[in-house]
């Protein structure tokens, strides 16, 4: 819809012309009429020429997908049948988007039947789903007496994926699945990795005989091997509450970590699932491949904090989303009791659970500003108690702070699991 407003020039010139002419008559001074005459000429010439503009705009987005922090090109083509001497085109930017290159607003002039192309480079600073391509258009008639404003162009969806940190290694699940993969299983069977030696029994294949051990002992010994299997990994994203400041929050960190973990596990041919556990429940059953990677990232883009007071436990998650012997990697700020109870419940049901705690401490107001130091200390102690409760259940909880490498948190979880394994022995 086009809105039309009177330009300040029209009212100013009309007022000056009327004032000058009346003053000329009142004072009997023709010079005043001569001074006022040009201000009457401009509206008299301009008003018959004023017509609402008719502009067609085609917007073209360089790509439908990008990664946060990267730039994407957006082009707008403007075409008009009638001449438009003054058109200001301002790209409508979604929240979080910024223009890196290109004039905004841009001032263009369109001849009859002529088209003008404008190009911008846009950067989206945060992951999420955006809509780009709409522009605000402000045009003026030839003498600039009226201003016409309208929204033009069609918004094109743009998916901005989280920038995933490159991981050298990930957590190994305690148990593997029966299908082939890249993970060395703890069980013994047909594989490549050497596991142990055992005496030859009837039915063993000759190629598995360890001839050195056989020569030393004088009886037949065969090699036992670890097979390569895949694993099921479920990424558990706690979206009940987040700690946030203006530019970042725990959910942002959790989404980036989830994208990085999913990418790495899928590269290892593991099956990866996702449970977004919060005010809105969302899940993806474990699967493998590039399609699953896009599914997970798309599901992560929809992850948001939706305030809810309804109690939710793990029973609301479909059973096939959590296959037996799956590794559950939870990304949580450990702020909401419902998520904590669900994780503890998973552990009690025998799932292999590891918690990466997205620390809300850097996002909380510091004790020097607003919060009483005693309150802050109590809060931190309570968080320690929560971690200890998880440790008691055998669940590693590692704090990961903004600015730290995710890899270090993963190594810490792996170290905890190794220590727990040794303690069990």
């Amino acid at each position, binding site marked *: 819809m086009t809105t*039309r407003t*009177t*330009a*300040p*020039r*029209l*009212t*100013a*010139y*009309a*007022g*000056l*012309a*009327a*004032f*000058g*002419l*009346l*003053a*000329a*008559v009142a004072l009997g*001074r*023709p*010079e*005043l*009429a*001569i*001074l*006022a*005459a*040009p*201000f*009457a*000429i*401009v*509206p*008299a010439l301009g*008003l*018959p020429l*004023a017509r609402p503009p008719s502009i067609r705009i085609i917007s073209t987005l360089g790509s439908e997908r990008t990664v946060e922090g990267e730039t994407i090109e957006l082009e707008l083509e403007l075409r008009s049948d009638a001449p438009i*001497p*003054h058109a*200001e*085109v*301002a790209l409508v930017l979604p929240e979080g988007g910024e223009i890196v290159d290109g*004039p905004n*607003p*841009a*001032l*263009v*002039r369109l001849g009859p039947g002529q088209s*003008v192309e*404008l190009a911008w480079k846009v950067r989206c600073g945060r992951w999420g789903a955006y809509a780009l391509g709409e522009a605000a258009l402000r045009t*003026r008639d*030839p*003498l*600039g*007496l*009226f201003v016409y404003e309208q929204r033009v162009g069609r918004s094109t969806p743009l998916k901005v994926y989280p920038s995933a940190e490159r991981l050298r290694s990930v957590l190994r699940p305690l148990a593997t699945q029966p299908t082939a993969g890249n993970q060395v299983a703890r069980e013994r069977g047909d594989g490549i990795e050497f596991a142990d030696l055992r005496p030859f029994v009837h039915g063993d294949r000759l190629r598995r005989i360890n001839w050195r051990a056989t020569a030393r002992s004088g009886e037949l010994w065969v090699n036992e091997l670890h097979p390569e299997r895949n694993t099921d990994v479920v990424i558990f994203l706690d979206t009940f509450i987040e700690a946030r400041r203006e530019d970042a929050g725990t959910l942002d960190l959790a989404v980036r970590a989830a994208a990085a973990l999913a990418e790495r596990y899928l590269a290892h041919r593991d099956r990866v699932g996702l449970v977004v556990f919060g005010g809105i429940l969302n899940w993806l059953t474990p699967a493998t491949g590039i399609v699953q990677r896009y599914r997970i990232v798309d599901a992560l883009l929809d992850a948001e904090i939706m305030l809810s007071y309804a109690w939710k436990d793990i029973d609301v998650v479909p059973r096939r989303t959590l296959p037996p012997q799956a590794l559950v990697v939870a990304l949580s700020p450990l702020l909401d009791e419902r998520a904590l109870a669900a994780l503890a419940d998973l552990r009690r049901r025998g799932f292999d659970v590891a918690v990466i705690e997205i620390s809300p401490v850097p996002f909380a107001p510091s004790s020097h500003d607003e919060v009483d130091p005693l309150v802050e200390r109590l809060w931190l102690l309570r968080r320690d108690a929560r971690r200890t409760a998880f440790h008691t259940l055998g669940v590693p909880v590692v704090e990961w702070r903004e600015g730290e490498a995710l890899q270090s948190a993963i190594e810490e979880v792996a170290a905890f699991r190794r220590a727990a394994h040794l303690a069990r022995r």
Partner: protein
Amino acid sequence: MALAACVGLFAAAGAGDVVALVAALAGVGTAVLAAGLWRGRAFVVPWSLLGLGAAAAVSFAEDSDPARSPLHAAALIAIGELAYWSFETRTSRPASSGITARRIALISGLVAGSIAVGAVLVSVARIDPGGGLLLEAAGVAAAVTLAAAVLALSRRVA
């Protein structure tokens, strides 16, 4: 700004005994325009033009020959156009060629047209048609009709 200062000086130069009043009016007009341009307030433009026009009118009172008034009128319209141009191009950057040239041509045309119309009006003003209430009434009616026509046109376009 420079043109406004020149108009003020030009008006003061022909002011005769009332040079102080003309200089004060022109100074206020120029200062108001400067403040408006600096602060980005377009509503000051008519007030500035009014001040400069008043300075010119007072200076004309000393000299009954209206021959200088077309130049003043052309300068005033040029000041107004240049001031509004300044406001309009503050927020946006030109992305296609010919915008500046077209605007300069438009202002030049308006200035030339103003001088031409002013010259015609000067020659009309030199004709002595006598006087009387009827002529005064006709003048008032013409002024009111013009103002009404501008208003009616603007409403019709709306």
